[in-house]
């Protein structure tokens, strides 16, 4: 995995697991790889992987069963989609609007392009 410079590695690891849940690699109540397995897979410090899992557990995307490992919380997919949508609206859209104003692109230009993709 190539890590970008924008986000801390633990966030990128958490995002990756979320992507895997979204794409159906792990389904509700499926066991996900252990912290160490995931750290080895991505070649990162175990403490970084611990941070990623703790973050996901806080967000209730995964839950811990003592001695058994981490599992996908039922409904996690919906939860992740909601969070991603929010992130898009709050962070990416304003940047897109800024670029549109800068380049003098109207919303009609966008809708006509959007219609072409359908």
């Amino acid at each position, binding site marked *: 995995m190539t*890590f*970008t*410079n*924008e*986000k*801390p*590695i633990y*966030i*990128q690891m958490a995002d990756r697991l979320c992507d895997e849940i979204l794409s159906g690699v792990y389904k509700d109540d499926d066991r996900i790889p252990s912290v*160490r397995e995931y*750290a*080895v897979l991505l*070649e*990162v*410090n*175990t*403490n*970084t992987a611990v941070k990623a899992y703790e973050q996901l557990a806080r967000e209730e995307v995964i839950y811990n069963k003592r001695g058994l490992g981490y599992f996908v919380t039922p409904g996690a997919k919906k939860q992740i989609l909601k969070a991603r949508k929010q992130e898009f609206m709050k962070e990416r859209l304003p940047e897109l609007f800024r670029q549109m104003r800068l380049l003098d692109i109207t919303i009609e230009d966008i809708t006509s392009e959007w219609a072409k993709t359908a």
Partner: protein
Amino acid sequence: MIEVNNISFKYAGQKNLVFDDFSLELKQDNIYGLLGKNGTGKSTLLYLIAGLLRPKKGTVSFDGIETKLRKPETLQDIFIVPEEFDLPAMTLDEYVKINRPFYPLFSTTVLEGCLKDFELTSDVKLNALSMGQKKKVFMAFALATNTKVLLMDEPTNGLDIPSKSQFRKVVTQYMTGDRTLIISTHQVHDVEQLLDHILILSPQKLLLNASVAEITEKYTFEYRTPDNMEDALYAEPSLQGNAVIAPRKEGYAETQVNLELLFNAVNEGKI
């Protein structure tokens, strides 16, 4: 666990002190990155910790025992992989048979696992290996000794492209529990995602001694356009815009450490 207290050191016949009244404490269960320009004493520090060199003044101790005494109970818990070394004319199997009794916690499982990851076998002739293969064999042995302290001097030098990735894999897999690893290197990109703690040496003193968590909490690493530089502590031009270190603003997300940028900023005294 490792305490370096007020040491002075110089090599015989040399005028300049490598260390002068230098102190440092290393804690258990961490992966340290030891960085510094050429000739700042990185390797010397590793040798002093391993007890291969003795300080002129001050003490280096491991769990309260001075390493220069080279007591068996110390030596069985410290292993050093130097940058360059020779191995005797024998197979790895014979080498293991002779050397493993010195390390009570030696693990054959770890050795076999590492060799498999590095695509090597235990019947290799140690004196007939390329530099990279020799390094991999010796690192596999080093990890298998299960010593509390493992010192590696430029571990990724001479490794081919897939082996660098394998190196990160075996380190994350086998540096378990209470083991401490100190990696001295110039190849920051090879190891940066493994590190818990960064040490930056300059001649005779430490310029930086901070955990990665502390660094990411305090500073933001990002690319910026030239019109947005007012709070930048340090900047370098790059293809993606200016690479910048700035104080992290309250409430803003943490960013990934750019180790090369941090190193340059610290060496120029900007941080």
